[in-house]
């Protein structure tokens, strides 16, 4: 029992530390949200990738960077409505 508790605590601390760490009840929306935000963070963070995308979009890098963070706010869209029960 203690072991189980400790595992749970460890998982919780991981989840607090690293955003996007999953758990047994991760929903599809949470999962896609994490993917979307992780992807944009990676596009912004890698200088070559940001330059590559900015060139494709025909915009300055700084503008594209702002747009991508803005898309991180949105994530994968509105969460699904919770069932009232």
């Amino acid at each position: 029992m203690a072991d189980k508790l400790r595992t749970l605590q460890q998982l919780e601390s991981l989840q607090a530390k690293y955003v996007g760490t999953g758990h047994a009840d991760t929903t599809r929306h949470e999962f896609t949200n994490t993917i979307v935000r992780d992807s944009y963070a990676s596009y912004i963070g890698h200088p070559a990738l940001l330059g590559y995308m900015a060139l494709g979009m025909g915009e300055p890098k700084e503008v594209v960077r702002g747009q991508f963070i803005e898309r991180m706010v949105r994530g994968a869209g509105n969460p699904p409505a919770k069932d009232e029960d």
Partner: protein
Amino acid sequence: MATTSSMFMYSLTLQPPSDITAAVLGQFAGTKEQQIVTASGSKLTIHRPDPTQGKISPLFTQDCFGIIRTLAVFRLAGSSKDYIIVGSDSGRITILEYLREQNRFSRLHLETFGKSGIRRVIPGQYLAVDPKGRACLIASVEKNKIVYVLNRNAQAALTISSPLEAHKPGCLVFDLIALDVGYENPIFAAIEIDYTEADQDPSGQAYEEVEKNLVYYELDLGLNHVVKKLSETVDRSATKLFQVPGGSDGPSGVLVCGVDNITYRHSNQDAHRVPIPRRRGVLENPERKRQIVAGIMHKIRNQFFLLLQTGDGDLFKLTIDMIEDENGQPTGEVKALKIKYFDTVPVANSLHILKSGFLFVSAERGNHHFYQFEKLGDDDDETEFSSENYPSDPLESYEPAYFHPRPLVNLALVQSIESMNPILDSKVVNLLDEDGAPQIYSLCGAGARSSFKTLKHGLSVSELVESELPDKPQAVWTTKLTRGDEYDAYIVLSFASGTLVLSIGETVEEVTDTGFLSTAPTLAVQQLGEDALVQIHPKGIRHIQADKRVNEWPCPQHRSIVAAATNERQIAVALSSGEIVYFEMDTDGSLNEYDERREMTGTVTCLGLGDVPEGRVRSSFLAVGCDDSTVRILSLDPDSTLENKSVQALTSAPSSLAIMPMADATSGGTTLYLHIGLHSGVYLRTVLDEITGELSDVRTRFLGLKPAKLFRVSVGGQNCILAASTRAWLGYTDPQTNGFMLTPLDYPELRWAWTFSSEQCPEGMVGIQDQNLRIFSIEDLSRNLLQESIPLPYTPRKFIKHPEHNLFYVIESDNNTLAPATRTKLINETPAVNGDANILPPDQFNNPHGTEHWASCIQVIDPVSTKSVIFNVDLEDNECATSIAAASFAGQDDETFLVVGTAKDLKVSPRSYTAGYLHVYRFHEEGRELEFIHKTKIDHAPTALLAFQGRLLAGVGPYLRIYDLGMKQMLRKCQVQATPNAITGLHTQGNRIIVSDVQESVSFVVYKFQDNKLIPFADDMVARWTTGATMVDYETVAGGDKFGNLWLVRCPPKASEEADEDNSGSHLLNERGYLNGAPNRLNLMTHYFCGDIPTSVQKTPLVAAGRDVVFWTGFQGTLGLLVPLMTREDVDFFQKLESELGEQSPPLLGRDHLAYRSYYAPSKGTIDGDLCETYFLLPHDKKEIIAGVLDRSVREVERKVSDMRTRVAY
């Protein structure tokens, strides 16, 4: 893992990336002089701006083997030296110091704070340092912020505290800077959005109402913790912050830049807001709003101003007015913001203003620019917009501000620093036929600053004199008259039957009273002793004294002199009989013959004598080359004169010898070398032991088909060797790495060369080319790739070469740009208001912007003779070119046509288009002109085209199709869905087609002619977002992906054979696919993270008679190659060397080397040559340790490492 691979590649960088991702300015050397430190990819470079010449030159480059993301500079109070903080992908913060004496970066602190890699919550995206150097904050895009306190200890050494956390979950950071608060507690300001509520609300209402906040984080130095001090709502579109000076210099606070506005904010001040002025002109949309993309704050004495740049490249000068008290003294209250147009420069990643009055613009794309300030825009008549006339509330409407862009007034361009970033495509072809070494043709740049660049291996030469002579000279020398002379006095030319002496003065003219024998050819000329001259001719030696008395040593009867070697005290000549006669000058200045003559076994072809070392009376070795393909070293010491010291066997008879000391990385000082040129055109360099005369460490290089002749010259103060074969080469020591380099000169073939020194040209060279006398000099040894640019109007995308002629066809397209037809229409239709009709040169002001408009064209480029664009076809109806091929059609008597694929109304993200087209053009005038034949509408945009067996292969969306040319349109013959997404590239050999997909790696497709069927038979198991690929052999493909990996995949032999069997079509068609893919899977052979996005991959040799390598170009301007390793021993050696280097000199930023090269997938079968080459830069003791572990000598290790490069590249 790696050891199990059966294939090994050795990866090398030819040219580092030229994109500057981050740059900082500071006094890193601890002197008054400012330097610029830049980060490009994984490389950190320190540059020295030279205010007197108006030039920036690199001082030192270090490869950090990690992605450098941010740089910041700080100085501890009271210190005069700036330190550098580097944020990288290592999950660590690094503080570096630049050591001026050693010209190295030294790591002071390395603090771990998180996982490695570039992740959402690992700090590293933002880095801000308190202006007083007391603390720094490193933050991630989301959630995490870490503050480090910087201080100094009792020994005055820099200390760094343990991290203080200021994390906030669910909060995204748009920008983060440090506030200037003087000596109060350090404050950091960030623009943030909290998305937690929006994430919980299914209705989407919370998302609509999300607010953007300006947040202050205060570091309480007393309590040693970080508190959130202020959170104020700002404009929703804000993305950028700039610091406003505080303390005694200004009001403190920040400028928050959003779309179309700049707002001043601070905790104790009112908000002030100015609009960003928009361009006025007939081609400008007056409704288009601008954003600030870069900027710089600069303080001069008690004033300050900011230069802010919009996405168009326009710089605005922003100043802040203060409320004045009754005495007319400014108070701390802000009265108004004022903004006015300053000048237009390329869109920058960062701007830097130097104290010496220069502006450094590290351009986002294309060349970096270095400007000098002519004035500061204080007293011009540009309209100034003041915040007093605009509301501070972001929601209130206001009248936009406008200005007219104009050519530079306040700035003057002093240097344009060549940058290849971004490279979009390249080809290695030999069009110049210079000795078989190919050139690199590449498409670089973006928008109106694009160019077609030709790169050639070579050193640039500046020519001073070229004059034709009456006859063809055989050789040329220059000589001083006395030892103390600074400059040369005579040029001596030797012809087949005589000698001509020219005197060097204001004019160069013939002199006859010099004492030189003019009726015989000359073999050598030397200034001897204090003030005498020596001329050696086939029949004797003339010793000419200062008073023109001549002592002649006649050659023995029936013999003649065939070779001679001289220095200022010694002379050795070889007779046709094979005897060697040796002379030495004695104290009274006369020549004494050594009483014995040494008889060689064969005919002597050449002699070599080194300079007399300082403080000695003679050079102790004579090198003798004989026609039995040997070089012997003879001693010249008095007790063993002309005795054999050592012998070196050669592959061919030597044609030229030179003994010369050169700077050397191994010993750290200079080493004596024997340079040997062979009749076969090979050049050798061996180390000559200064005591024993032993020869060791032979390095060879093929120069050309003619016998190699060697000449000692001097460039940039160092001894160099000029080797003339079918081309002239220069052997020199690289100024940065101290490694030996051999580079051809960008100059015609030389028969002979010699040093030339005069008042105008202290370090020149004189050479003979056919019947011409040429005087030239070499200035820059730091760049060994020569660039030539042809400007292009739009971003080039792809290009092809004409199958027969030396012409290239480039497709160019620019998003959000007005097409020329629309521009003309606008100009003709709009009534011009004064000043609006000015059409500005696009290379400085960019092409006119038009949202969702495409400007696209096809251009014919002649890179060889005219070096310009010779034909242009503009595309209309908002079409943009996406692919190009030259295909010959069997149905048209094998005539070759140019086929261009286009997309109409293309939207990049998310991708959409209304139609795709195939345009067909006929070549005229040997390809110099194009005639439009017809265009065919198709359902998708054709993104890849290739000539295939007398027809055309097209990648149309996910479909692979074969088209034939019809009278009215292209006719579809067959198709298959080859990949899941979109085809980006096609390659073929025989019936096999390699299809690369935008997302799903490469697939192998076979074409069955009998069945007219395309059948995919093998694909990859890993999603690789392929950006470039090439067939290395029939079964193997080398490629690169969007994330910066290079890989080789191979088709299993059985699948490959089965696919090519006759009549296997129906069998292949009916074979069951495996896991929703093709029946077979490709095997991964090698994998390597190169750090840059490969945009083209090609298998080609790079040097004359070199092996094939996989050459790739990177988006950020990298040129690199993969060289196959031949033997298992080599693999073991380099693997050991890699691991030893990783241990002995771990990467500067604390990123593990192997983890870096395995960024996305474990590195496999690839040796990092760039790491191996860092061996040259190690201190000698570390070199010894590593060499000891490898069981070899330092020289052997260095030789192996440098051979890997010189055999196949430069």
